């Protein structure tokens, strides 16, 4: 059956199996494939996948809102990274002494590394708090969250940078600013949003699955 599926349909089924938050139901995928075999279009299939994803996110929001709130609060402290980086100006100056393109690559890597360490610290605190309150921990899912945060943050950061570059704004001198004034700067909002989005995705991927009652296999 799967051999006769088009590439687009195979991709849709893969998305249904792997991207639905909280895990997909094999019954749902089977039902979708059964309808497809009976003449449904690929467009219908993608509609079902989209709605299943939305439904999955809605369920996740209902159960994970404290974690998402934590991600929001943690992300608000993201501008502090700028202040920390400014304190290491000597190190950054050494990076810029390198020949191009290594100077740019290393500086970018340094900034990204700092941001990822910041996000992983938030993720670790959130998972630790969750584990302490529920006595549940899944190391494989934590690793999944850490791994997933890298491409998601790269994409979110690129989108934030593009948004900031397209929006007119005035440059700010962060050295003369207090932290409270710094986090109020509108220019940081897209970067905070990128951090929040990444941390939310990572937390949702890292927290142990809900105790969904698995159906027993019956002779039907």
């Amino acid at each position, binding site marked *: *059956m799967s051999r006769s599926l088009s590439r687009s349909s195979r991709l849709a089924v893969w998305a249904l199996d792997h991207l639905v938050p909280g895990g997909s139901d094999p019954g749902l995928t089977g039902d979708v494939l059964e309808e497809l075999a009976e003449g449904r279009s690929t467009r219908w299939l993608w509609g079902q996948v989209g709605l299943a994803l939305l439904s999955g996110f809605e369920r996740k929001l209902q159960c994970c809102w404290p974690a998402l709130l934590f991600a929001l609060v943690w992300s608000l402290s993201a501008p502090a990274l700028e202040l920390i980086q400014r304190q290491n100006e000597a190190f950054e100056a050494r990076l810029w002494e390198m020949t191009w393109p290594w100077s740019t690559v290393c500086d970018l890597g340094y900034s990204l590394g700092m941001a990822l360490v910041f996000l992983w610290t938030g993720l670790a605190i959130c998972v630790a708090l969750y584990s302490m309150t529920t006595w549940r921990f899944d190391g494989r899912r934590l690793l999944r969250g850490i791994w997933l945060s890298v491409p998601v943050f790269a994409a979110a950061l690129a989108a934030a940078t593009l948004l900031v570059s397209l929006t007119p704004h005035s440059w700010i001198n962060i050295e003369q600013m207090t932290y409270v004034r710094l986090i109020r700067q509108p220019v940081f909002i897209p970067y905070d949003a990128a951090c929040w989005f990444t941390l939310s995705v990572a937390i949702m991927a890292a927290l142990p699955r809900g105790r*969904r009652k698995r*159906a027993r*296999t*019956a002779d039907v």
Partner: protein
Amino acid sequence: MVLLALIRLGDEAYGVPVARELRAIRGREVALGSIYAALERLEGKGLVTSSLGEPTPERGGRARRFFRVTKEGLRQVQATRRALTTLWRSLPEHEGGKA
């Protein structure tokens, strides 16, 4: 509505027939994902139970998940019917007949 569809379908109640039943009643398309989300909530409340059938090749090797209404679910359906009947009976009559 989902519980009523399950009762009507009996032992053959899995995603596809439930979606068709609801489509026939509502007159419009119902997403399979929404049905599963609703059934999962009902299962969480103890109104529905589910069991997996055997995987079949026409479903890409995936099993059917059959749903069944529990005794508590049947009680809830009866209670809802009684409440709705009472509400309908308490409506004032219009000139052209009952409301």
